[in-house]
């Protein structure tokens, strides 16, 4: 950057303060300020005004209309096939899981009464009693066994087949208890069972054009690609039933249209809006925003086994060339946390805080590229709108490259079929990873030698060994120490550059109460329907 941008303008201060008023947790804020280099003294004054959060008492009744950002004919009521936010919202409202994660990432019990294990390999799950499905059938262990086993059947096409594979034995002990034996010890089973795909369906269900779950709402209408309407489940087993009478969920893919629909009052909740639209909302008093830093990120992957990734120094040079501050400020308008090139975000207990992100140093990058003999050669970077903001990020990398004589060519490809044709395949390309509750899932999915999504083909036997060791470790301190070291290894050796963790911004009418951030994603981990209410 010839001229380092100086004016972190007053507008952005106002925005940060605006974020506080809406109940962003204190810890998020601190991290945000630290990462963006704003002096603590200046930050102090901002905090004072945050404490006057409004006392919140739930009100029942009313019907809410919410809009996500994408839906298509591929929408489904089958939790195993759920792939988009619209599917997750629908499943959360109609089904329940054995466990769920609260706003602080702690595991809470839902359908399960208790989950016990002594060696983290064989687990005993006892179910709550008095829980009935919408069609009146009471919940039994058979339903749980059926729901978990179906993920192994390829005909179902389950998204979590690779995770479910570790459950070698799923058996019914009696009507109220289920036994699960894992291939190898894994202390995170309770957190895994909190994933949306492990919702519990009635035994033997195959037709998913209708939904028969135990959840807070009964699915009244479901038109794939159009809309779905849920009506309050009167005999809901939870003591505090859903506050809303009904809720309607559909998608408005155009960000501007979604924001305008909220501002004109047609909808009460607009999911994941573009950070640039924050400026529109601030001026409007009856609209608020809810920001969650849940660990979603768009990363630059450089295949270590293909040219130019295989050239020594290229990956490290790229990590120095990425201007994380520019990406945070101009692409995400400050609504992102600068990351240190590893997947475990600050929202996770095991985040390694003393692993400093690489500072932006074009000269060092130039030296590395020179050593790798790549100065001046044209290097294509594949980007697409399928990976959030990847095109803008690619442009920023291209600009930094121009300064030091590196020629990057940005190949913008259609989002249609991006995940099957370009992701994992192009030598240098962008990917996008949704938040996962545990480092174990992240590392086994992304960085293990046999990982299905090993974006940069990072192969390290030492890493694999540590992964298995950490998985079985029951002593939390030991586990944290291993995960911290693994994070350093990924940051320094893997071919994936992760510039920022993207904060998810949901905009909602000020009449909506009870929406809290959640590590599993925006809209309160997609389970907002059950917990929010409409003030008069």
């Amino acid at each position, binding site marked *: 950057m010839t*001229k380092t941008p100086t004016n972190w*303008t007053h507008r952005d201060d106002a925005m940060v303060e605006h974020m506080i008023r809406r109940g962003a947790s204190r810890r998020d804020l601190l991290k945000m300020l630290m990462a963006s280099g704003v002096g603590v003294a200046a930050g102090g004054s901002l905090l004072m005004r945050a404490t006057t959060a409004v006392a919140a008492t739930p009100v029942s009744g009313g019907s809410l209309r919410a809009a996500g950002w994408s839906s298509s004919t591929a929408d489904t009521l089958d939790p195993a096939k759920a792939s988009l936010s619209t599917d997750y919202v629908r499943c959360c409202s109609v089904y329940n899981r054995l466990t769920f994660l609260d706003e602080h990432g702690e595991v809470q019990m839902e359908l399960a009464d208790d989950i016990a294990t002594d060696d983290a390999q064989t687990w005993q799950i006892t179910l709550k009693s008095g829980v009935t499905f919408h069609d009146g059938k009471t919940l039994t262990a058979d339903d749980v066994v059926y729901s978990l086993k179906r993920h192994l059947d390829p005909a179902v096409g389950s998204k979590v087949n690779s995770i479910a594979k570790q459950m070698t034995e799923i058996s019914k002990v009696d009507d109220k208890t289920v036994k699960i034996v894992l291939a190898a010890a894994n202390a995170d089973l309770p957190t895994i069972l909190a994933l949306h795909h492990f919702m519990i369906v009635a035994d033997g269900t195959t037709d998913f054009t209708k939904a028969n779950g135990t959840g807070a709402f009964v699915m009244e209408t479901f038109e794939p690609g159009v809309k779905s309407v849920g009506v309050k489940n009167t005999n809901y087993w939870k003591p505090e039933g859903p506050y809303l009478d009904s809720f309607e969920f559909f998608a408005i893919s155009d960000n*501007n249209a979604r924001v305008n629909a909220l501002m004109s009052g047609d909808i009460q909740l607009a999911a994941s809006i573009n950070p640039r639209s924050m400026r529109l909302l601030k001026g409007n008093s009856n609209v608020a925003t809810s920001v969650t830093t849940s660990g979603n990120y768009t990363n630059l992957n450089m295949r270590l086994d293909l040219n130019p990734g295989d050239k020594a120094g290229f990956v490290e040079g790229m990590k120095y060339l990425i201007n994380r501050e520019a990406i945070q400020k101009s692409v995400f308008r400050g609504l992102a946390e600068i990351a240190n090139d590893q997947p475990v975000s600050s929202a996770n207990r095991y985040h390694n805080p003393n692993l400093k992100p690489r500072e932006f140093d074009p000269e060092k990058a130039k030296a590395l590229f020179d050593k790798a003999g790549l100065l001046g050669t044209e290097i294509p970077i594949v980007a697409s709108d399928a990976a959030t903001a990847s095109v803008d990020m690619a442009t920023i990398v291209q600009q930094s490259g121009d300064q030091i004589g590196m020629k990057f060519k940005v190949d*913008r490809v259609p989002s249609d079929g991006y995940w099957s044709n370009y992701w994992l395949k192009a030598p240098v390309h962008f990917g996008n990873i949704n938040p996962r509750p545990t480092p174990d899932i992240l590392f086994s999915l992304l960085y293990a030698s046999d990982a299905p999504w090993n974006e940069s083909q990072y192969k390290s036997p030492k890493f694999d060994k540590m992964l298995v060791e950490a998985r079985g470790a029951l002593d939390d301190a030991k586990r944290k120490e291993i995960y911290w070291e693994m994070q350093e290894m990924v940051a320094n050796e893997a071919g994936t550059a992760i510039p920022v963790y993207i904060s998810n911004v949901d905009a909602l009418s000020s009449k909506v109460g009870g929406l809290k951030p959640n590590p599993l994603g925006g809209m309160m981990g997609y389970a907002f329907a059950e917990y929010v209410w409409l003030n008069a």
Partner: protein
Amino acid sequence: MTDKALSFRLPTPRNLGYSFNWVGRIGLLVILFWAVVAIIGPEIAPYPPGEIVNWDYFTPMSHDYLLGTDYLGRDVLSRILMGARYTVGIALVSVFLACAGGVILGMVAAVVGGWFDMILSRLLDAFNGIPSLLFGLVTVAAVGSSIPVLVLTLAAIYLPGSYRFARALSVNVNTMDFVTVARARGERTPYLILREIFPNILGPVLADLGLRFVFIVLVLSGLSFLGLGVQPPNADWGALVRENIEGLSLGAPAILFPSVAIASLTISVNMFIDNLPTKIRDRS
């Protein structure tokens, strides 16, 4: 030497033997302006088109950023100057390809007639039936994306329309006696088309070309959005409008000026074509 220069009269249309009203002249002036910008644009741009010059976005017009900054904080003026080359260049080449192809095929179909005309018309009607989105995606998938591919795709999308229009005109001219006389002389189809029919359908065909140019400028950004053609950091004007659409509610110059640029180009092209210079024949 100087007196020769003095006597050199300005080549106004009048003394070149053409009558050219002021509406047409304004249109021509604006077109020439944008053509010059398209050629020298990137060189005179104050900042490199892709560079982020300001943290703030959608800033108003200011001293160092004459037309403010766009959604990423890049200088709007430099991006418009860079965009001119793409919009003017690609749109002009595609519209000429589409109309040339359409007119030639239309004339041949009208003159040759019979089964050739029937089959060609049905094929191009069928081609119109395929949605341009599917066609764009297939092209990107099959051939990859580059400027030539973008130009050919645009030309292919608009060829059937200009074919239908040119064929209808040529069929009328084909029934005239001077074509029959030429046929009776033994002339072959190429001569009939180029010298007898084409001069008589040139006027309406140009008007159609003007309209098609407008559509192409707009569809151009749609296809780039699909990933076909102009790659970042460069962008045509349509893409500039599309990527800065959020600025609309803020009334940001980042969206107003590209739209003004598009409007000025398309309106002036049509104003010029509707008022072409006509040779003074001195007849009432």
